[in-house]
């Protein structure tokens, strides 16, 4: 069967069971857009290529399947660099296909030419410039394999226009031959046993669960280990939902804006089980002062993470699910061997419960007072189904959502962690809703973020993807304002945005959405109720919130986690909270 390169590319995507492609056509990718007309693959036409990339990410984070984006050469390729970098930092499997000028024109500064593979080399797990039409099926199969196995990540296939136009004899490769790519899956038996011994020795253990738990689909295994050994669990920003928030062992989010109990339990623990987490600076604070008394067991599928920041006593390379399943058995065996001589964890759990009681997350919404962002987010949470998927941008609204939302199911939290990409929420929510059309999908967004990618709501309306946007509008680049207030002596520089320029309700309506506005606490419930009742188009609620609210607790950047700052309105400052 003779196919053009373009047909072979689309057929290869069908072979990979791709159900949706997010993209926008243009010159160099034109040939590939022709066979899409006949393909069963759904194509979602975005309004900006960055949106296509974030949609692919949101789709991947909600479904676990790789997201696919397709755009043309030159400016389209550079526009998708941000999502590639975002996916690289957060280990999200996406496959990006870019058009390229014809092979004979490469290197000649042709119209819409750019060195796409060169530019994206540092932000992809791997990329390919297709040199020959015959290579297409093999490269597509390799690309999906690389994106989804080992430590997942973004890959890019750059397809010159004449490669798409040339013909080839169709084939589908049976096997993948990549001599330099063989991820380690099974953990080292001896190390797993050693970890089990440390677990049975520990008096103050904590599990530090990272995004790798979700990538490895290891939530069940994590729960089995935590329950068996009675170990409390913190879930990082990338792992929210990996362990249910309503579980008594769940301590919530650690880190710069983590809650007091999660941060302090890590500081005081004697055994830290880092599972699919990478000792990010936003979690550790000052590394030398992080978890100073802890022995560390570090499980990660990426060997380069082991010892990169903190040298573990027990490093284990491999897939978190397999390793945790084996660790559960190893802990059982170790317990059988020891009989009754196990440390009593009750004092540790008591201590943790005291912290929880003394230092809850706190805000005080007065009925006639100004509207507080935390109150709006909690209302959205309480009035939406338990398995709602929530996406966030980057900044204060993201931290409040991560702190306050109750994530009781994995794959319900979609946010930009490592790169901190403002504007992520709207397109990512669209991608998540595309993959999970039966679920309620809320984007909690800031006004600064919203203005970066709001045009994708046009896409959502046109494609009938009814997401809901809770716009936490404090008229400021709020997190930057918070830093200027706390660390730059209240010298506010270029952070004011205005609450009504643009008019978010009118803007939403212009994009085919329903636009609602809340200015007082009593407006909130009716607006959310209305938003949840609409299922035929996107909804945007403009919550006009108090700009003075800050995110607490907070560990100043680079400082030790022991110097956690609590909200001074509710907690005395300067005291040693732990005494």
């Amino acid at each position, binding site marked *: 069967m003779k196919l053009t390169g373009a047909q072979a590319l689309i057929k290869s995507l069908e072979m990979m069971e791709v159900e949706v492609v997010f993209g926008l056509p243009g010159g160099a990718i034109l040939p590939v857009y022709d066979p899409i007309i006949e393909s069963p693959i759904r194509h979602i036409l975005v309004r900006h290529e960055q949106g296509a990339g974030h949609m692919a990410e949101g789709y991947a984070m909600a479904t676990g399947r790789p997201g696919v984006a397709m755009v043309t050469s030159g400016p389209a390729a550079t526009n998708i660099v941000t999502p590639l970098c975002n996916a690289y930092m957060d280990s999200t499997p996406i496959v990006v296909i870019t058009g390229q000028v014809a092979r004979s024109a490469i290197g000649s500064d042709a119209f819409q030419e750019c060195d796409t*593979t*060169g530019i994206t*080399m*540092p932000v992809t*797990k*791997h990329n390919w*410039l297709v*040199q020959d039409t015959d290579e297409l099926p093999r490269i597509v199969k390799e690309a999906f394999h*690389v994106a989804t196995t080992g430590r997942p990540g973004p890959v890019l296939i750059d397809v010159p226009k004449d490669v798409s136009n040339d013909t080839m004899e169709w084939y589908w490769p049976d096997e993948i031959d*990549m*001599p*330099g*790519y063989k991820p380690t899956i099974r953990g080292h038996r001896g190390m797993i046993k050693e970890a089990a011994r440390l677990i049975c020795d520990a008096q103050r253990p904590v599990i530090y669960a990272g995004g790798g738990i979700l990538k490895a689909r290891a939530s069940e295994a994590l729960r089995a280990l935590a329950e068996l050994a009675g170990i409390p669990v913190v879930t990082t920003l990338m792992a929210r939902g990996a362990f249910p928030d309503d579980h008594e062992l769940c301590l919530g989010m650690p880190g710069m804006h983590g809650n007091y109990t999660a941060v302090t339990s890590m500081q005081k623990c004697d055994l830290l089980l880092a599972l699919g987490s990478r000792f990010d600076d936003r979690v550790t604070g000052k590394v030398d002062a992080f978890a100073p008394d802890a022995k560390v067991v570090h499980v990660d599928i*990426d*060997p*380069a993470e082991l*010892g*990169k920041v903190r040298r573990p006593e027990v490093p284990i390379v491999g897939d978190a699910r397999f390793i945790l399943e084996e660790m559960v058995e190893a802990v059982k065996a170790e317990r059988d061997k020891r009989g009754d001589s196990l440390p009593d964890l009750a004092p540790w759990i008591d201590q943790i419960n005291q912290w929880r009681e003394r230092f809850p997350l706190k805000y005080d919404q007065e009925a006639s007072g100004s509207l507080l962002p935390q109150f709006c987010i909690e209302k959205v949470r309480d009035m939406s189904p338990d398995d709602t998927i929530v996406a966030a941008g980057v900044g204060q609204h993201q931290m409040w959502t991560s702190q306050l939302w109750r994530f009781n199911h994995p794959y319900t939290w979609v946010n930009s962690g490592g790169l901190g990409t403002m504007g992520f929420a709207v397109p990512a929510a669209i991608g998540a809703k595309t993959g999970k059309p039966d679920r309620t999908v809320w984007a909690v967004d800031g006004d600064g973020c919203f203005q970066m990618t709001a045009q994708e709501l046009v896409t959502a309306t046109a494609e009938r993807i009814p997401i809901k946007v809770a716009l936490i509008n404090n008229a400021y680049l709020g997190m930057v304002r918070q830093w200027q207030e706390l660390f730059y002596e209240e010298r506010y520089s270029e952070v004011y945005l205005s609450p009504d320029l643009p008019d978010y309700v009118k803007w939403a309506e212009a994009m085919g959405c329903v636009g609602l506005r809340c200015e007082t606490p009593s407006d909130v419930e009716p607006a959310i109720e209305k938003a949840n009742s609409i299922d035929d188009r996107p909804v945007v609620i403009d919550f006009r919130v108090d700009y003075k609210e800050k995110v607490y607790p907070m560990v100043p950047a680079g400082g030790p986690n022991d110097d956690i700052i609590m909200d001074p309105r509710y907690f005395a400052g300067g005291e040693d909270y732990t005494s």
Partner: protein
Amino acid sequence: MSGPADNAAKHHILSVLVENKPGVLARISGLFARRAFNIFSLAVSPTDDERVSRMTIVVDVESTSLEQVTKQLNKQINVIKINELHPTDAVERELMLVTVSAGADTRSQITELGAIFDAKIVDVGYDSMTLMAAGQPDQLDAMEDLLRPYGIEEIQRTGEIALPKLSRESTKLRSVKKPA
């Protein structure tokens, strides 16, 4: 250039087998740049298998970050295998071409000096000559130092290449078990 003692402490030789594909050198050099690793020298050449090239990379790092270098290199899809060669366990060589000012009065001195290092004279002009020497990098350093007073006009060194030293233990002896 630092002396041999310093080199031993900081220099590490990585012998890296990579797939012979377009852009591989850019991937490796880009990785070193963005992870702030310092390449001291780099030599790339084909192997007996046309699908595979060998890179000999000498890096300037502490041993803790050497671990990061090799782990990050290993993550590259096109990297097939990495061997760290300890200087004591490796045969290291480098090639140098050097053009030195050499008038009638100094030509014989330079020739003698070159002979000490087993250098060959590969070109001669009226007032300069070009020598070729192959040797261990510190020998070439020494030769370079000694030639400098005569006036080095141009110099090109290839960077080090290396292979593991061969074992001279007999297989029979190695298989003998220690008594319990």
